[in-house]
């Protein structure tokens, strides 16, 4: 296996610029985009905080303000909205739980928020008792993303026992496709991001034995294009975010060595803005916090020097997950 080094043809990771980029995100309140993305504010905070952790600058965001903001998004039913005043949704709820996990804020959730148990109940109530899958909110949209979000958050809270894990597992299995991948619901096309949610959910449930790992690994490794980048589906363009979705799935089934590691590192580094910081989807495009999170997570998974090791199931620092799960 090729040794990851910083002295290749690529420019090297501009850590300081990336940290600065993430820290200035919240100050751009005079930009239209800031207001247009309000429905993603809590998720955005998670992506930014993750990036800082992976770049080994976890203390860069003020802890108290972070917790205050997260708790201000919580509803009486325990769920979290994307921003104060937005409806509670499972996707913002998992972001809230993950942020609190990263800043060691579960005690504050109990003391100042509605408490862990209420969050657990909010999530558990979203399970469809017939299929085992999860809704995103009271509106009943089902998607393997929501199922993964539920298992992720509940396992971090130590409340997995609130839901029917076996049923959830069998729903994931029903989303497997003929090509070895998984889709958003039964019958839907295989997609790298959906594969991550399915495989990571099975890993959290301890049921990787249900995955045809060789077939899946073959499909995932075929995502690498000659330029080194990974795509999300066959015959589509490469994109930095798939460095996470594909790579983490390969890591979970222990097959990262099936792709060209150095070529992918070079591709990811080519997507950074070395001066202003941040990563984009492809070289030369506009950077954003989403690609900055998954670009740095990808580099961490690839063992790039100086990065905080990441847990492929949770997209969080390994040591934090280990501390919480007691692994």
């Amino acid at each position: 296996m090729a040794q990851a080094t910083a002295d290749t043809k690529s420019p090297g990771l501009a850590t300081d610029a990336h940290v600065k980029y993430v820290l200035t995100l919240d100050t751009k309140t005079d930009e239209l985009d800031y207001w247009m993305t309000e429905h993603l504010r809590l998720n955005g905070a998670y992506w930014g905080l993750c990036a800082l952790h992976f770049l080994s600058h976890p203390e860069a965001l003020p802890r108290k303000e972070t917790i205050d903001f997260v708790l201000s998004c919580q509803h009486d039913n325990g769920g979290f909205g994307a921003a104060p005043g937005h409806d509670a949704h499972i996707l913002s709820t998992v972001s809230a739980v993950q942020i609190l996990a990263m800043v060691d804020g579960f005690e504050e959730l109990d003391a100042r928020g509605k408490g862990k148990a209420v969050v657990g109940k909010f999530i558990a109530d979203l399970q469809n008792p017939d299929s085992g899958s999860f809704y995103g909110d009271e509106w009943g949209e089902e998607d393997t993303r929501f199922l993964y979000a539920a298992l992720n958050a509940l396992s971090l809270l130590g409340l997995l026992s609130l839901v029917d894990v076996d049923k959830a597992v069998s729903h994931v299995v029903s989303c497997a496709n003929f090509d070895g991948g998984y889709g958003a619901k039964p019958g839907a096309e295989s997609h790298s991001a959906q594969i991550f949610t399915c495989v990571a959910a099975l890993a959290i449930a301890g049921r990787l034995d249900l995955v045809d790992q060789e077939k899946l690994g073959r499909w995932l490794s075929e995502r690498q294009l000659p330029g080194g980048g990974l795509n999300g589906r066959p015959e589509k363009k490469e994109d930095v975010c798939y460095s996470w979705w594909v790579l983490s799935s390969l890591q979970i089934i222990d097959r990262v060595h099936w792709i060209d590691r150095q070529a992918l590192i070079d591709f990811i580094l080519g997507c950074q803005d070395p001066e202003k910081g941040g990563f984009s989807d492809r070289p030369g495009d506009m950077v954003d916090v989403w690609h900055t999170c998954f670009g740095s997570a990808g580099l961490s998974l690839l063992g790039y020097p100086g990065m905080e090791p990441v847990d492929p199931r949770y997209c969080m620092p390994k040591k934090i997950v280990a501390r919480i799960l007691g692994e």
Partner: protein
Amino acid sequence: MVCAERDFTLTKRTLMSVASLHATAIRQLTPALLSSTATTDAPPVTVGERSKQRYYQTNPVERRFEEVGFPGLTPAEKKTYTHSRLILPVANRQVSLSNKTDREYWKQVTKEGLPCRRLKNNYSWGTDKHGRDVGTYRFEELKKRSLSQAKLTALTVLHRQFLLKREAARSKGAELPQEDIDQEKKRRQEMAALKRELYGEIPGPLGNDPEWDDVIPIPQEEPQDALARIAYTDDYAEAVSYLRAVMASEEYSPRCLRLTEHVIAMNPGHYTVWLYRFKIVSALKLSITDEIQWLNDVALNHLKNYQIWHHRQLLLDHHFANTLSSDAEAAKQFAKSETDFISKILAKDTKNYHVWSYRQYLITKLNYWSPFELATTQSMIEDDLRNNSAWSHRFFIVFSDPSHSTKGSAATEYDPKVPGAILDREIAYAEEKIKLAPQNQSSWLYLRGVLAKGGRGLDTVGDFASQFFSNLGAEDEEVTSSHALDLMSEVYHKQGEIEKAKLCLVELSEKWDPVREGYWKYRLSELK
């Protein structure tokens, strides 16, 4: 009584220039001083300078007093200064004088021509919307501003009349005629323009619409100061603040439906507004087909938005529960019109994940396993052989159709219920497309998927796959499909021809797919 230059109420002479009013008033009050001192100063250029001059005109000896102080004044100046200072206290009986002295005093005042009213020093004109001191305005500028202020006041009077009139009408259970409302709308637009011009306030279209007067908008809690700079964001911030208010009061009405449309037009990614819209549609029992019609345009304008498709699915479920489940013909018609629209949108964005997912949901929900569905998918594959979404959908409609498949059979497992003829047809179809584009991943994956469903081995397509390479390992080696080599390595392996299998994998690793060297090495290690 002190004359403050700004203390004019404009209700009566609203359209009259305030500036000229001031001038007239002051000229009448201080004839003597205007004729004496005004001529000695240079004419003022700004309104602030003029205020200063008028201050000196109405406060005699004040300038000298400022320059030399009381002790430096001549005895005559001291007398004038003191007299002028005493005018108000004496007039207000704060200083009690005997009748005789009082008469003497006023005689003296009249003789000297001292002003009975005087202006205060350092009059503040305030600032305009740019933060500029209005005192630095030239006269023409002030005249224009004053005229606008007067116009705004006049409009405000009419606006208040409208509100009173409407209240009176409503107390009798009536509404004002549309003509009045239209006039008020026009009036508010003019008022908004004037407020923007004078004070930089930007009331949005909803604040200008009388229909929304009863709603008190709930503004954003986050910092708002930055918002004023972008006009578009102002409209958005306003709309969302009204949205919060009507959502909080759980109002489901036609105007709220229009409000959701307004917000969606500006930001279709706003998650909550879609859910609220669906609540309105179901609460008002609106026509689902009308809503779908509206949604079509939104979908065509925002291809990457997934809320649109979730909203559509909610509408489908709602429509199904109320109508379609008991009316097979209506269900068929609906499925047909839906798939027609889906085809239209897929023509613009052929691999849209949400659209394809909705299509699968629709077919399952309405049991719409029609030959038409297979045909349209087929034509999408013909258009682009590499459209993995279309291949994936074909697999779904062929192998999930309950008329010739086992219910609940997993996509990866052998299904004995699938007729051989269908398997043959699908294998032939995949092979035909592979021949057209041998390096296409999608068609090879499809071929493997069909074989697994039919319980047929890879060796059954060995001859077919072998045509995509020749002279393996030799100088003149030719490979037109790495996928064929991959498949044949498995076939050879199964047939016990390890060396041949190995050769395929070595060539893949070294020549035809080196980026996945790690994978091919693994496969090689499995051969032993």
